[in-house]
């Protein structure tokens, strides 16, 4: 299934957000997620299902002013 992750098209096999993120290499680290512009809290990722073409944003802490 193709999904748009941070602006790049990626293939994932799982249709669960949590599992898909693991496939994409996101582990242990601190990050936040949104699917199609809606925030998906960490606690909800194991139940959030993905569909072909979904837009996923994965954001991590960075420097800010």
């Amino acid at each position, binding site marked *: 299934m193709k999904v748009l*992750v*941070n*602006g790049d098209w990626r293939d994932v096999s799982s249709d669960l957000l949590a599992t898909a*993120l693991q496939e*994409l*290499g*996101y582990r242990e*680290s*601190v*990050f*936040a*997620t*949104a699917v199609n*512009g*809606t*925030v998906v*809290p*960490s606690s909800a990722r194991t139940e959030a299902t993905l569909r072909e073409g979904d837009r996923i*944003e*994965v*954001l*991590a*802490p*960075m*420097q*800010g*002013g």
Partner: protein
Amino acid sequence: MSFYGVELRSRLMLGTARYPSPAILAESVKASGAQVVTVSLRRESGGERAGQGFWSIVSELVRDLGLRVLPNTAGCHSAKEAITTAHMAREVFGTRWIKLEVIGEDDTLQPDVFGLIEAARVLIADGFEVFPYTTEDLVVAGKLLDAGCQVLMPWGSPIGSGRGLNNVFGLKALRAHFPHVPLVIDAGIGVPSHAAQAMELGFDAVLINTSVALARDPVRMATAFGKAVQAGYDGCLAGPMEPRDMAAPSTPIFGKAVFE
């Protein structure tokens, strides 16, 4: 001074961007005496650990120095973007504080006050404690306060410009019209005297980033801003003399000797 019930001794807030190295960032934060540091969010790809690395440094500072983290919504150009980003920041940073930026124009990075007010309303309803980055516009300020903001962060001049206070009159009027609202100058401060001036005008605090991070010696500049903010605050409370147009002797002239 308190922001949303949190008492702070230091009136300097520090941004964490653009430092030459994480070590210099950490030293600068310590040297500044700041109790609030701003942070942000960005895209991270799987396997990348940049965000994690940055966050572990800041977390340590936060823990060691008892800091508060103030996430921003930098780069957001609409209320919707800013709202989504704020929610993600709340989850990642574990704080209800959000420095709300809705940018309206890319050259000056000026606030879009329409998107700002809209986002502030929504976020406050969602339980956030909003620090809006705004202009000196009194009407906008009133609407932000009506929306439930308890702090305002007017710009001094464009972010990163180092120009100081572009509109002293407007900032004075803002201070005069909202004497009891915590007001923080948020952008454009370039040198310590700018920060002291802001405090002398009666502002409650100053947020600095670029002018520390891009100084030749950021740690020393952080020290300088720490002192300048105190100097300006003390100077304001000490009740300065009124400037005079012409001179008055500071040495009494009574009793002056005459040598002919």
